[in-house]
């Protein structure tokens, strides 16, 4: 195992975060804080409690998930796409590093960045809404697993993208709508029956509910469905990234 290479990639990517603190940290924190102010404090006060939880508190896990998913995907996708775009990927490909080590470096850094942003958002949320975490270990597990899984997914997007437009398509056109329609701001039970059934096909619903369960012990589904779906998606991403890296798709040819 080339530990120095993993360390080099990891620190190199984390350094990018340090250089772009506004974009990496401040921007997601500000936008999520606005959600808490508008939906949590202002509108939330006029909405009745959901399963015994105030609306402001109810949306915390969903907004946390929204940030984790979009940040993990964009950090990782950009992290691998940028050197591809500038051509500096040559030194990663020419170095004595295995595919696994490349993935650990890039995905580890992306997941770390998302985790940092997630923790900052949780701290920020505590200033605006009342918040409690019923199962902190489960929450930490889901937090880390989500960051890792979607960083892997972002890595896949970054490798397969040939231009900046393709890089943005999945996060903007697919992930954001899935999160918003996945019960981040409401309970699935509040939807008409038809839309409830449609929502069952949205994988993000299970992730948000899993995270909400770790906070308040309430969920539209069994927690194991959430954990299993997240682990299954992680496996799909690992398989996808392994195949793509091994074949050198869009990089080596």
């Amino acid at each position, binding site marked *: 195992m080339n530990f120095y290479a993993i360390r*080099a990639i990891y620190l190199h990517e984390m350094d990018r975060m340090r250089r772009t603190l506004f974009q990496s940290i401040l921007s997601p924190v500000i936008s999520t804080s606005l959600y808490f102010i508008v939906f949590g404090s202002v509108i939330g006060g006029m909405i009745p409690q959901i399963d015994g939880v105030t609306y402001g508190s109810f949306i915390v896990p969903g907004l946390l998930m929204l940030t984790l998913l979009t940040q993990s995907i964009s950090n990782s996708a950009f992290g691998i796409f940028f050197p591809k775009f500038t051509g500096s990927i*040559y030194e990663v*490909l020419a170095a*004595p590093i295995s595919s696994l080590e490349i993935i650990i470096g890039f995905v580890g850094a992306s997941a770390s960045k998302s985790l940092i942003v997630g923790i900052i958002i949780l701290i920020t949320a505590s200033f605006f809404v009342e918040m409690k975490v019923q199962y902190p270990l489960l929450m930490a597990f889901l937090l880390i697993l989500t960051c890792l899984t979607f960083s892997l997914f972002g890595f896949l997007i970054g490798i397969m993208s040939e231009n900046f437009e393709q890089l943005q398509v999945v996060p903007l056109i697919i992930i954001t709508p899935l999160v918003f329609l996945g019960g981040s701001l409401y309970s699935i039970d509040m939807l008409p029956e038809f839309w409830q059934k449609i929502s069952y096909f949205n994988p993000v619903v299970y992730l948000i509910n899993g995270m909400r369960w770790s906070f308040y012990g309430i969920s539209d589904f069994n927690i194991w469905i959430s954990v299993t779906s997240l682990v299954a998606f992680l496996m799909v991403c690992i398989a996808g990234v392994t195949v793509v890296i091994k074949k050198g798709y869009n990089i080596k*040819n």
Partner: protein
Amino acid sequence: MNSLISIKNLSKVYSNNFKALYNINLDINKGEIFALLGPNGAGKTTLISIICGIVTPSAGTVLVNGNDIIKDYRLTRSEIGLVPQELTLEQFENVFSNVCYTRGLYGKSPNPSYVEKILKELSLWDKKNSRINELSGGMKRRVLIAKALSHEPSILFLDEPTAGVDVELRQDMWKVVESLRKTGVTIILTTHYIEEAEAIADRVGVINNGEMIVVNDTAELIKSMGRKKLTIDLHEKINSIPTLLDKYSLKLINEGLSVCYSYDTQGSQTGITSLLQDIKETGLRLKDIKTEQSSLENIFVELVQKDEK
């Protein structure tokens, strides 16, 4: 000499069916400077990229120090440093971190004093904290060299290292190459400045349309394929070559004040003696005589043109 890099039947066909390399066989010796020459799109960069692990070969094998570049990639890549043709650098990072990053990628423990030594040798030390996008093109080229040397490689690939750099930097760069050779580093370079290859390379290989058309010692190639040119300056201007001299295929140059004769030094008879006798018979008065060896550039052009036919 020992073969450090051994290439056997190497081919590369890209996904769009473009044949970049076809059945390349080449051995590069330890400690030598090998110049890979060829027109644009000949396959030079593809060949280098395959050896370095950036491009996957379609067929054939490459051994570096006896190790296969695919099976034993950790061993082979650790020995190789690459200076790419394009200025591909992280623009917003500073010089020092950039070089340290490459060293880390190659599995070497951090060694700030070694990085400092390289930066000083390449006159980059005072720019160590500058961001890459603040540097000139020549400075960026130096950073690429520093990165390639950061993990102490025994083989260095220089892909068009002097493209777009000023004369001073070019000379500096060749000094660095020369000093590296003295430390035992094997250097493989591609260049469009053939006079540089002629001056610095021990051996040259000419590649065209993905095929290696010649590999030889630089001096040997020039000797075997080179022609000499005899230029005879005359006292009086002439309008045409006298009939008596037709058999020599002379060229009238310098507005009729000189004639030029090309001859093969390898031939049994150069024809110079008889030419000078025949010139005397025509009554022409000679002012000066000089000879000139055809350059590697002339030979390169001739080889490529012959291959195109």
